[in-house]
């Protein structure tokens, strides 16, 4: 093999490599802009870290943002859906008061998925727990099984749903972690709306992500950690 040949090969290799490096970010951006055509993968584990020390008592902005984004009525009767709610806590010994948003905890081992007879309750590869309303028969067993009371049953016929958030009478629903936004590369509505930036959203599986770094450095808890469900939503300050 002659020297020129080797040189030519080397040149081709370098230029192909350079082109790839040049194009790749553009391709990535293109993918982001158009939603991804690839299936979600378990390389991601979406989660949240909620800083309750920053969460203002009486502030309801995350709840309002959720209702608006997902087309919920915002009604508070026992038959109305509430995907996220503010819970006011008082330590029974010390009397310390804590305020925090409560929603589907997106467990790695979700009891709702275990009990669902049709498999309508399911966990996506990226850790988001959802209800496939096409196969939900409305038995409400998942609501019985959920330790966090995260789920609501649609008690009435609905109209004018959001195009991205289909909801319907006779099926069970809960926080989707704004899956339609996450798939577009955006944050969940509540995280975006929080005036104190108390809700940090990110990929728990990426050690370099902001959320993973913070979880490594500050003390955080999972609610009902004793159940061993490995929740995707973590809390700081309780």
């Amino acid at each position, binding site marked *: 093999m002659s020297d020129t040949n080797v040189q030519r090969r080397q040149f081709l290799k370098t230029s192909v490599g350079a082109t790839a490096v040049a194009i790749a970010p553009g391709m990535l951006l293109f993918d982001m802009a158009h939603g991804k055509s690839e299936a979600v993968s378990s390389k991601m584990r979406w989660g949240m870290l909620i800083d309750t020390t920053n969460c203002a008592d009486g502030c309801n902005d995350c709840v309002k943002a959720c209702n608006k984004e997902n087309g919920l009525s915002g009604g508070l009767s026992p038959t109305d859906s509430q995907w996220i709610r503010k819970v006011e806590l008082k330590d029974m010994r010390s009397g310390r008061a804590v305020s925090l948003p409560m929603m589907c905890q997106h467990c790695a081992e979700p009891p709702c998925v275990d009990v669902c007879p049709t498999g309508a309750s399911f966990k996506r590869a990226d850790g988001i727990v959802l209800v496939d309303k096409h196969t939900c028969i409305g038995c409400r067993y998942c609501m019985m099984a959920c330790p966090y009371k995260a789920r609501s049953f649609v008690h009435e016929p609905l109209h004018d749903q959001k*195009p991205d958030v289909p909801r319907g009478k006779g099926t069970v629903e809960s926080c989707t972690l704004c899956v339609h936004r996450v798939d577009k590369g955006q944050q969940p509505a509540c995280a975006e709306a929080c005036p104190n930036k108390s809700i940090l959203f990110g990929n728990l599986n990426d050690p370099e992500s902001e959320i993973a770094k913070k979880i490594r450095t500050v003390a955080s808890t999972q609610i009902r950690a004793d159940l061993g469900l490995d929740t995707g939503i973590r809390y700081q300050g309780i």
Partner: protein
Amino acid sequence: MKVFLLSLLLAITPAWATDSFAPKLDIGKGGKCVEEPQWMRKNHMQVLLQQRDETVHLGIRDGKYSLKVCIECHASTKDDSVLGRADSFCEGCHRYEAVKIDCFECHSSKRHLSLVQDASLAQKESK
């Protein structure tokens, strides 16, 4: 009698597109979209079903057979809807074929960004 009914059935089915009884639809944008219209008439339910499972379970949201995309193009320009009138894109055919649609109890039947002329809106408001 049976033979008569059968022949009637045979006569109607292939003549669909040119049938004078066929519904005249108010389609926002007609013609070939993702597939030939005749093919879509036959197969839209299968592709929608496939797309729905991919979207819900795998998070694939840019499939060309998405229900949302259908509605964006084909909803009426009068009311932005595929539902509600005898000539609506979905309801027109489904009424004609007497097939129940199970999509819109949950899914929005409206175009996301309205195409209805502002003028007509203003007219309505002034009334």
